């Protein structure tokens, strides 16, 4: 379970302090798929960073399975993430010098898997890239790169998956196929999904849709 209480984020701006949002409360149950919908600059990526423990809020608390992320230092949060949290990014974030297979092996190695190669091959086969194991990211199309990223996100069977505009860099057809794949794997693994997007159609595929606007979070109708 992922719980946020009284979450607030303020920045020092050129004209004094800017409050991105304040006093946000949020509870996401295990296995639930939640979409956070919002316009550019609304703070949805910042919220995702806070929920994932990549950053700390200026106020409030975040709990993951009862562990208070906001009371941990960055290294403790990293250890908690390893193998338990997966990410899919808009910009893919694959390592250019590593092959598709090696990219997927990376989180397995970080979480101390016994057979990173075997598991990574399986994960790539599951996303339909069994023939592309030794390709480097620049040799893959955008859709293929995002499939590698999805393979990397699911390979450790994480409890929690964060997706940040996963189709933002893809054309519509490719984007739809990627989303199908994402939700299919999500169902198969029973993963909790937090998806950030500005696309209402994509958001509607989740169990619950939350709107972020003017620093407040509301459940969409």
């Amino acid at each position: 379970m992922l719980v946020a209480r009284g979450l607030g984020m303020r920045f020092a701006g050129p004209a004094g302090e800017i409050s991105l949002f304040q006093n946000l409360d949020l509870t996401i149950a295990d296995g639930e798929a939640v979409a956070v919908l919002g316009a550019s600059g609304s703070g949805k990526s910042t919220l995702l960073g806070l929920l994932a423990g990549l950053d700390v809020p200026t106020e409030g608390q975040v709990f993951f399975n009862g562990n208070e992320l906001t009371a941990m230092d960055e290294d403790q949060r990293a250890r908690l993430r390893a193998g338990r949290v997966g990410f899919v990014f808009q910009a893919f974030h694959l390592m250019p010098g590593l092959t598709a297979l090696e990219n997927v092996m990376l989180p397995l190695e970080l979480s101390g898997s016994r057979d990173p190669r075997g598991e990574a091959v399986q994960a790539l086969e599951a996303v339909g890239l069994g023939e592309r194991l030794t390709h480097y990211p620049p040799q893959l199309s955008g859709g293929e790169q995002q499939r590698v990223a999805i393979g990397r996100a699911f390979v450790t069977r994480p409890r929690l998956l964060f997706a940040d505009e996963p189709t933002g860099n893809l054309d519509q057809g490719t984007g739809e196929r990627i989303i199908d794949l994402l939700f299919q794997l999500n169902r198969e693994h029973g993963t909790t999904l937090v998806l950030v997007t500005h696309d209402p159609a994509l958001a509607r595929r989740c169990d619950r849709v939350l709107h972020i606007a003017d620093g407040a979070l509301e459940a969409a109708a």
Partner: protein
Amino acid sequence: MKAWRYALKLLLRDYRAGELRLLAAALVVSVAAVSSVAWLADRVGEATSGRAAELLAADRVLEGAESLADRFAAKAAELGMQTTRSVGFPSVVLSGDRTQLVAVKAVETGYPLRGELLLQSGLGAPERRAEGIPPRGEIWIEPRLLSLLDLEVGETLSLGAMDFRISELLALDAARGNVFVSLAPQVMINRADLAATDLIQPASRVRYNLLLAGAPATVDAYEAWLERQDLTGIEVERPTDSQRGVGEVIERARRFLGLSALLTLVVAGVAMLMTVRRYAARQVDRVAVMRCLGATQRDIGWLMVWKLIWLGLFAGGIGVLAGLGLQAGMLALLSGLLPETLPAPGWRPAVVGWLTAYAGLLGFALPTFLGLRHVPPLRVLRRDLTGRPTGAVTLYAAALGVVLALMWWQASDVRLALTVFAAVLGTLLLLGAAAAGLVWLIRRRQRRGAGLLQFTGLVRRPVTSTIQIVAVGLGLMALLLLTVVRTDLLTAWRDRIPDDAPNYFLINIQPSEVPELEGYLNDTVGVDTRLYPMIRGRLVEINGEDVAPEDFPPGRARGLVEREFNLSFREQPAEGNRVIQGDWWRELPAQPPDQFSVEQGVADELGIAMGDRLTFRVAGRTVSAGVTNIREVQWDSFNVNFFVVSPPGLMEDFPATYITSFYLPPDRTDVLPELVRRYPSVTLFDVGTILRTVRSIIDQGARVVELMASLTLVAGIIVLLAALQVTAEERRFETALMRALGATKQRIRRMIRWELLLIGGLAGLLAGGVAAVAGHAVAVYLFDLEYALRPVLVGYGVLAGAAVVWLAGGVGTLRYYRVSPMRLLRAPENG
């Protein structure tokens, strides 16, 4: 995560992706430079160390007059020690019409007591241990004497009044006292033949040695007894002494070459700093993803440390192998100067090489690498976050600290290390300021619209261009100094010697031979010359206080006190001598005979001033006098000169030999064999041959240093390439944009070519300019030579710099204009 395994994987991947090649190359060059010197010094040093007793051929050697040794030999025999005697002196051997200066060693049965003598029955024949000493009537000679005299084994040569048959070649006499090949080849005869040669006359330059060997306890007992004896006129040599002289030469050469090697490391370090910075910048995203996926700061830190450990292991290994090859090259360049057979290369220099690799990585790479720990995971969402890259102060402090530490280690002396460090830093700053000035001039010219659009790269990246110019310039400068300036200086020095300067010296002339020899030289040989008395004495007191070698710093001053001085007496100052303090005796109102005139250099070295009273011991007696004048002597006139001279009347009673020098035109050398035959005990030195040998030794040594300087240039080229790589993305973008705007490939190629030629040209300009000024300064202020500034050096520098940079940089920039503008725009990051 097993950091070591994962780091290895990532490192290999990065290497495949071309990320680390220049960093590895910079490491390889540094390690090769440092380890090659370590190997050279180690092998040459090994040839002497641990074999100290062999170098002496005994456990103790007593040197002194012949008769003095008897009671010391008797005591040794009483203690049950082995003893033998040898006599050493320079002389001239004669074969047909050829003469050659040699070092004669006459030995008795039992020689050597320690170590071994290796013989060959002919050139190229296998070496074998000598069983015994040369039989009577036979002579064993160093192989090179065969070619010098055009002789073969079995033939005969004359030594003094006796003919000897060459029966063996001396492949190795460890106890020659020096591992280096000396000017005079060695010959060995049986002591029993010595008298028949007629070579030994009173006051001849002869070393009588008593060699002793025994069990350690016996040697200690003898040593204890020796301490209670009056050792006046006797010198005791211990194994450590014999090693010291050789050791000092090796140590000095090692320090010099070691510090030169560090210059390569400094330049390569600049390349490392540049490539590591780029590498780290390109790692930020990867690290952010890893952090996001759960890697802790500690994980990242260890990953980076392990990457460097692996990099050091591989690049260090290749560098060590390259160093081994270089060392073989250096030995080949020094062939003839060193013993033919050296100990096999050991493992220690390999360790030195690896440690250098790690020291380089510690100073130039680790701080930047560790900075990556601070990359925040949030960077995956916010591109503007870069974490806390290591600050410039930390980076430079680490780099300079490691360089200073390495210099200290190479110099084994804090002051020397600090001096060299300051000199290197000063030179770099000076070159940097000059290069920055040149770049500024070109930028200003371009801004005025002089139409130099081609030079955009140079103009738009002034700092990078300055670094490139300095790095390449430094290597070029070292090479120019070593090749052109060195040759110039030697030529200038040779030109200063008058054509008719004396080219032959005769020493060991007996007083009884003086009138006849003088007549012979003047009438028969046809040279106008005078013979001068020479008395050998050791400086024992200054102003009544004992003089001990330990009171002086090692080097020339100590050497002067350890050896015997050549003293003389004369009425008039010698030609080319100038009194710079005090007055020559004839000008003094009263003319007491107890006066000394001292040569300026010796006075400076030993701190002797006007009015000081010097006491010399000559053949067991002492002679004292006050210093009444100090002379400046022009040594390279090759006239006979002495450090210390007295007026007639002070030293006539002391045993003396005579010496002279004269000029003999090359077409008159046919008189020399007859001269040697008539006066067998007189030793003839051929200055021309000695000068040629000295010059060839300097040339050989210089070539080794040139090799080191070439490595510095290679490091400079790596800096050039690293700078090209660092700016590659920018350049790709510029090129793609220009091509998209309609620039042809040819135009871009021309632009890059101009930039490279200009960088090389400017580097050469600086190198040539500094080399010309430095050469001039060294010639005029250090060597007092006439040597004009040579602007042609600048020309050489510009040509060489432009060519080197154009060739090396051309390869590095090929990629920029070979790819289409589309591909460049589409994939700016993944080239």
